[in-house]
């Protein structure tokens, strides 16, 4: 059986784009799961309609499985629902106005649902997370040092890490290499060669740019949902 996952992030309240993606997914073959990797909310527009839809999906569409992202964390922190800190990161980077815009963009009715969301999913040997387990705002891209990427995979103990925060779409496979380690302690010396395991980091994109992952073949398809007047564009297959 074909098993394919759709991975979406960074909708920031954009219900229209979400509907376009759902429309595309209906036509795509074999998509069995839809993962929304956070940033469902943002300060640019009112997010209530999208949040309603994610919590109450239509019967004929893929049921979204959501985790929280950087924007959700900022909102929950500001509302006192995450630790002792307020939305300090947001306040520092974008100012008080954006903090209030974010508060205005989400009805407090949704806070309960948002605070119930998980930090990430582990599916098979894959980790699905907004940034990484080191930091929800971890900006992993194809330019990130492979050492950091190996560290992030190691922390979650997965072979594939799907990440969204950078908004970039990429599939970076670790294909080989190694590192010699020599340890000396009071008992003597030991040598060890650690090989690079075959692992991948996949950036899934944001907004209308989303990703379909074919579990059986380990292939990634980078797609962009577009409105009626445009023709859909497709990444490599």
């Amino acid at each position, binding site marked *: 059986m074909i098993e394919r996952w759709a991975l979406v992030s960074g909708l920031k309240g954009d219900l229209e784009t979400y509907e376009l993606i759902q429309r595309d997914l209906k036509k795509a073959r074999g998509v069995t799961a839809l993962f929304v990797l956070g940033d469902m909310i943002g300060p640019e527009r009112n997010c209530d309609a999208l949040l309603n839809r994610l919590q109450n999906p239509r019967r004929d569409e893929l049921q979204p499985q959501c985790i929280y992202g950087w924007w959700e964390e900022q909102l929950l922190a500001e509302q006192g629902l995450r630790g002792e800190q307020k939305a300090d990161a947001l306040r520092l980077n974008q100012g008080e106005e954006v903090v209030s815009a974010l508060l205005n963009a989400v009805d407090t009715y949704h806070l309960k649902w948002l605070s119930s969301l998980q930090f990430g999913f582990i599916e098979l040997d894959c980790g699905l997370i907004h940034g990484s387990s080191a930091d929800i705002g971890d900006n992993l891209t194809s330019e990130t040092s492979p050492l950091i990427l190996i560290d992030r995979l190691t922390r979650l103990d997965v072979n594939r890490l799907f990440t969204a925060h950078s908004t970039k779409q990429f599939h970076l496979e670790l294909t*080989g290499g190694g590192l010699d380690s020599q340890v000396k302690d009071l008992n003597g010396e030991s040598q060890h060669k650690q090989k690079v395991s075959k692992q991948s980091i996949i950036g899934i994109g944001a907004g209308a740019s989303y990703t379909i992952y074919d579990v059986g073949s380990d292939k990634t398809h980078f797609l962009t949902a577009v409105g009626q007047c445009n023709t859909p564009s497709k990444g490599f297959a």
Partner: protein
Amino acid sequence: MKHAVISCLHANLAAVKAVLNDIDQKGISDITCLGDLVGYGPQPNEVVDLVRELDIACCQGCWDEDIIEGLNACECSYPSQLAEKRGHLAHQWTAEQLTDINKDFLASLPTSIRRDRILFVHGSPNSQHEYLLPDMNAFAALERVEKAGADTLFCGHTHQPYVRDLKNGSIRVRLQNTSNHNAEEKEINLPMRKIVNAGSVGEPRHGSTNATYVIHDDVTGQVEIKEVVYDIGLTCQAIIDAGLPRIFAWRLSHGFEFAEQAEDASHVCER
């Protein structure tokens, strides 16, 4: 020039004095301390006083941080619930004993000290609570040194001294993205780096009861791990007199408590 690096003194005055004496006998006057001046042991003020008096450059350890911040430190520092309970007892006792001046001193310590391409930290560059064990994933270990912008990273916190050389590293990657239809491949060569764990002066857990520290020669890059015998009986008696958990005395006189090894080497405090 040679310099000595000590860590995890843990309020064990007899061990601290013995190690400082050993360093002095070798004609070394340059000492860096990686923190954990207090905790577990019976002489927190005496040890902090001595370090202040000798003006030893110090990083802040996990215990030093917890004593001043209150126990909001992560419980994940403790490998078991029992260890955690005992740790809390020791924390409370130490917090009561420490003078305000000594608390202020611990609060003023930096989380890292840099000397050119050498970085000194307590746990890791990420956190005072992260354990860099000798068998940690080599790439993740190298990432810690690279993140620190260092050639050599000195750490403590595990109470097990070691020197780890990471070399001849490379990583091959294949990249696909939206702009390349054919995957591009590249190979990255990794730099050679060193991690030195200074062990523990006052709470050794490397398999023997001796205090440990390291001597670093910054010309040759050589690191020697040193063991120093000290009067354990003196410290054990002081632990019992202070009313601290007896297990701390037992642990010092046996040198190792299997149950209290960190289970997850790459664990990072999410606090």
